[in-house]
């Protein structure tokens, strides 16, 4: 599944080549995933639509991400490293609370350095969750404050969402045809019994 994420990101990066201004988007990658109860789900928050080697680049961001805390419990945040190293050239931080995660990063790099460092698409941060109950949890972007190298706001054109499905721990994870066959079997059995 991780490989699939990488393929998607790579595809977004390729699409973001130099050319006419592109829409600024924040996506959750993967957009949909299933984890077993008690397992861990990891979601990348990816920005797309910046310049490649040119402005605009991202100088700071401050995001709020909400989710169903009955299903998911926040477990951690890892920052992407393309605003700075989190120690000398940037500072970052966040709060993990029930149903909501805040995260921000502030770069100390000059705008030109950011332009040179950042591609058009990259991961801002990676959130990890613990699957605490069976169900489906939607990750949504609440507050999203983005600033370019000069601290001027960057306006999002759209923001995606993500879904994490949590299944019981004993239930095998079946492929859709198998379910279809199972459904067909059960249905057939029910029809035969009525007859």
């Amino acid at each position, binding site marked *: 599944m991780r490989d699939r994420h990488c393929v998607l990101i790579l595809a977004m990066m390729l699409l973001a080549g130099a050319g006419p201004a592109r829409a600024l988007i924040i996506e959750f990658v993967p957009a949909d995933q299933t984890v077993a109860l008690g397992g861990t789900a990891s979601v990348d928050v990816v920005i797309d639509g910046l310049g490649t080697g040119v402005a605009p680049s991202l100088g700071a961001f*401050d995001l709020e991400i909400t989710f169903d805390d009955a299903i998911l419990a926040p477990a951690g945040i890892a920052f992407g490293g393309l605003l700075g190293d989190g120690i000398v050239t940037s500072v970052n*931080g966040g709060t993990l609370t029930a149903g909501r995660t805040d995260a*921000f990063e*502030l*770069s*100390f790099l000059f705008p030109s350095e950011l332009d040179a460092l950042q591609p058009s698409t990259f991961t801002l941060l990676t959130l990890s969750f613990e699957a605490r109950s069976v169900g489906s949890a939607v990750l949504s972007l609440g507050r999203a404050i983005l600033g370019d190298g*000069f601290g001027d706001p960057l306006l999002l054109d759209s923001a995606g969402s993500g879904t994490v499905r949590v299944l019981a721990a004993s239930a095998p994870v079946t492929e859709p045809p198998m379910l279809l066959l199972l459904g067909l079997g059960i249905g057939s059995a029910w029809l035969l019994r009525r007859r």
Partner: protein
Amino acid sequence: MGGRRLRRAGFIARFGWLAVPALMLTAPHAAARGIHDPADAAFAGAVHVPMPPAGLPADALEYEFVVAGVTFRLESTSGQPLLAAPFTGQTGIYVETFSDSGQGVVLTVSPPVTAIGFLGSNFDGCPGAEFVGALDTELVHTPPFTFCEDVFIGAADIGDIGLVNIRRRGSLFVVHDLRFVPSPGSSGQADLAISVESDAERLLPDTAGGFDLLLDNLGPDDGSGVKIIDFPPTGLLSGSAPPDGVVDVTAEVVTWDRATVAAGSGEPFRIDILTPSRPAFGCKSLLTNIAAVSGTSVDPLLANNVAVDTIGFDVQAVFGEPEICGNRIDDDCDGQSDCMDSDCHCPPPRLPLDPSAPAPNCPLGGNIIEGPSGEVIVVSGGCEPLPASEHQCQVPRGACGGVVLPAYCCDLATWSDPSLNASQALEACRVEVPGCAPVDPNFKESNPTVNAAGYGYAQAGQRISYRIHYENIGNADALNVQVIDVLDSSLDDATLIVHDGGRYDPARRVLIWTDPSLPPGEPRSVGFEVNVRADAAPGNRVRNVASIVFPNAEPPSRIDTAPIEHVLIDPQFPPSPELSVVGCDAVAPGIWQVRLRNDGYGYAYNVAASVVDPPAGVVVTDPTARFAHDEDERPDALATVIPIAVTSSHDHIAFTTATPGDPCPALTWRIRWENLQGEESIREVQSAADGDRDAVPDDVDNCPAVANPDQQDTDRDGTGDACEAPAEPLRCDIDLDGDVDRDDTAAITAARNTPANGLDDPRDADGDGTITVLDARQCVLECTRPGCAR
């Protein structure tokens, strides 16, 4: 005159039976007389012979010597040596007479003389002598009831005297001086004359020159024992002897001896010199050569026995040349040196004292009173006057060298006018040189007065009176003493009045007094008065030096007095003190010693300075300080503030102030002082302007228009906070620590996503009313350190 003439039985006895008819047939000589006054006319032109005669052995009972062709033979009949014993404390011929039995000294004279006498000191009784002349015998002794410590006994008008018995019962006598008048025709009378002529009237420094002397014997007889004496200009005698001359480098004299000089003959002599370099030889210098002649023959005219000529500095040769500034020499001889000369284009020193004149910017150098370049009082180096304790003046003491006196002794009036209330200073300012003569008896004084070093003030047209004091400090009569004075070119000889029998040679501008006989320990003086030229310019100087010549001293000696020099001032600006308080030094919290500066050329006495009307920032509890020179012996009676110096107070004032530095220059002071006459003066003075009255002088005030005694300057830019507009806070300097760094961005991110605290909240860098990470990013770009580091 006062002597008692007696005929004596001894005389009759000595001449045997022939004497009786002589006594009977010969009446006493009508004019016969004993003489007690050495100035008696009978001794005019007398030959003086200091006793003891040269070469007298210490134990001799008999001795013979010749003077002016006359042979004298001394014989002691008391058994005591002729030479005075040390116990007498005298030098001379010792005459001891305990009885009339022939004790004493017998003097035989050949050929006999017309008058003879003895000057001496008596130790017991009163001396007497029996003079045996061709016509009479005169017994002379001191009259009764006469104090006869120093006496003269002589006789004349008794015919030629060939024998003298010096004796009187119960007397002890030491003869210092023998005087006699030879009989006409029996001994030569030679009018010896000397003249001197310089090569040039004026020469430049380092130039060869000289003086030609000419000896003449104007007769009528041959001169004997002739000595030609020359005193070259002081300091210019080299060790090389002129032909036939004898050089005494120590005494600075050249002599030539001639056994006889034929009547009507003459002989030239020559003295070569090299003029000194500058500044020793300067515009006012006169190189004075003095020539004299003496002989053992009788000289009927002494006035022509001395001659003087001078070589001056060739002023015309340098006039118009540029002044070299700062070498302390009046290079172009216009009377102004260095900054005093307009050639130097610098503000003149304050002489004449002109309050409106700018302060000197290139002051003079040297001690407080300085030599040949002529400044009366000068400062030493730099623009600031020296501390008073470092001033001094040096007083020349002739052969004894010099003696250094503290500066307060150099006041113009301290020495010349002791009637002023400067008695303490006069007593303190002694000029003795240890181990040397206690005082120089040969000196000049003047009116207007001068200070210890001989410097004073005068002005154009003013009359100056000079008096020259001289004394014989030897132990025998000085004969034919000459006092010589050459008039300064700035003196108008048309107004000259010569006192005390002096004569004036207008061609050479030389004054000469002749004193035929000067006994030891008898101070005398001569004087003259003359006007300064009416057209003499201020700044010029009138310099005067007298010379006293003792031609019969051994060796002959010439003594130049210390110079007297008057600086000509502008009467509009007489020298006076110019006092101000220039600072205070804290000696303890709230206790201050005050520094007083005298920029004037006048002395001030008993000076007190008081703070008046202090500004609000200065709280004065003791406002008055008093000043004295470090070496004042009794500052409670006479406290001295000297010119061109900074004098510290000898007590303290008390005040507190918020001013970080020294507030005293900015304070107003009331200064009181006295002159030597006790006349009080008062002035109020503030050394440094203080427009805002914060006790900080304007020139160092970091906010001169606003009172700020604490001189606060937060940003240390040299401008006081009181004068600066409120500082514009640095954008994004959230913690107001003067820079923008991570502390400031951290303060913003800590408050992100909250409303700004009003429009001026520095955390809301973009002013959108909300503190966000974007504000932090904008502030990153305002960081004042690389990488926004702390």
